[in-house]
């Protein structure tokens, strides 16, 4: 594995967990095995990932292989499974030494990229199809995107643009999920009329960076209510 950069284990290759990722990786495994009896717990395999630091917290995005133990107990699993390898992605927030599992996605390891004949999807989602996400995820995403196009009456000039917007839409769905995980109010995030815009486009078109860049005219302070 590539040596960890100081202060950031960024975009590591697969291999035993680098020291920086060991803590959150073990915490994620502990959460995964919670409630399981001894002998039925999964074991941590290879780990890779990166860390983003902000304020007092660090957000670890990890990908790890987990080895499920053989399962011969018919009451636990219908078919005897000798050993199953899962590929999981975890998001772990470490705030002042306290870990919190924000997201967990696990699925069987996908050994090859399936070609299901849906070019718009596959070519538009190069990253995703390489992810361990199941095929029905892609089909579901395509139908959600189709609903979006109908609901908000979207038109795209070319097939290429449609493919590009589909891939932006799909990655925005993942972003919305992350924002959802990191909100401790009651808000719901998901598909909106801006879901086919990249973050850059949205910022440039709809937001107003001047607000933080330029001090406005000085105004005097209003009296508080009830102030004699």
């Amino acid at each position, binding site marked *: 594995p590539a040596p960890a950069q100081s202060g950031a284990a960024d975009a590591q290759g697969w291999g035993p967990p680098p020291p920086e990722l060991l803590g959150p990786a073990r915490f994620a495994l502990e959460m995964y095995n919670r409630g399981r009896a001894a002998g039925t717990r999964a074991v941590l395999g290879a780990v890779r990932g990166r860390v983003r630091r*902000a*304020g*007092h*917290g660090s957000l670890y995005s990890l990908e790890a292989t987990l080895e499920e133990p053989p399962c011969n107990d018919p009451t636990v699993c219908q078919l005897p499974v000798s050993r199953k390898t899962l590929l999981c992605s975890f998001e772990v927030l470490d705030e002042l030494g306290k870990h919190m599992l924000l997201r967990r996605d696990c699925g069987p390891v996908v050994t090859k990229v399936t070609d299901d004949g849906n070019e718009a999807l596959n070519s538009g989602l190069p990253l995703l199809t390489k992810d361990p996400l199941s095929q029905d995820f892609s089909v579901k995403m395509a139908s959600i995107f189709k609903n979006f196009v109908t609901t*908000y009456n979207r038109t795209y000039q070319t097939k290429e643009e449609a493919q590009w917007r589909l891939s932006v839409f799909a990655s*925005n769905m993942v*972003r*919305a999920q992350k*924002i959802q995980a*990191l*909100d*401790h*109010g*009651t*808000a*719901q*995030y*998901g*598909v*909106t*009329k*801006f*879901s086919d*815009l990249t*973050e850059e486009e*949205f*910022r440039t*078109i*709809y*937001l*107003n*960076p*001047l*607000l*933080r860049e*330029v001090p*406005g*005219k*000085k*105004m*005097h*302070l*209003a009296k*508080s*209510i*009830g102030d004699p």
Partner: protein
Amino acid sequence: APPEWDWRKNGAVTKVKDQGMCGSCWAFSVTGNVEGQWFLNRGTLLSLSEQELLDCDKMDKACMGGLPSNAYSAIKNLGGLETEDDYSYQGHMQACNFSAEKAKVYINDSVELSQNEQKLAAWLAKKGPISVAINAFGMQFYRHGIAHPLRPLCSPWLIDHAVLIVGYGNRSEVPFWAIKNSWGTDWGEKGYYYLHRGSGSCGVNTMASSAVVN
């Protein structure tokens, strides 16, 4: 301050508007505030022109952004605001076409408000909707409910969107600000955004201001 307040129920808020593909949120935040001030001090609710600010407020940058404090000053110097009907919104900058004779409202001054959210609530309940500026983190995908992003992700130092607070209250004991946005009624809760109150969430208390109408 009363436990809850909503100027939409008291006739001080016009319908939700749509800034289109333009960074003119500052103009909508300010006209929304002036609409409320004119209603509360002169008794008439008028829908006022953002396009006039885009075209004629030379201190600000139309679709590239602007500041409420500059906009108040521009309204004062121009001599008032025309109505939406008289000077309709185009969503991009044009030559200034303001005429003082058509101005239906004027303002005398503008003030900066406290950063204490309890004082802000008291001010709002007594004086009217407040222009504020927030960090828009998460708003691209907001659908409904009370937003309360983790503080490191919605820093009060990265303010990038101006909106209008029209009320406040509690939903299942979660305190909120009711915020009128300018992205149309097909975004958020019929055009409104609900943000956690009392924790300085997304910098909501850092740039509160209002026009003054004598």
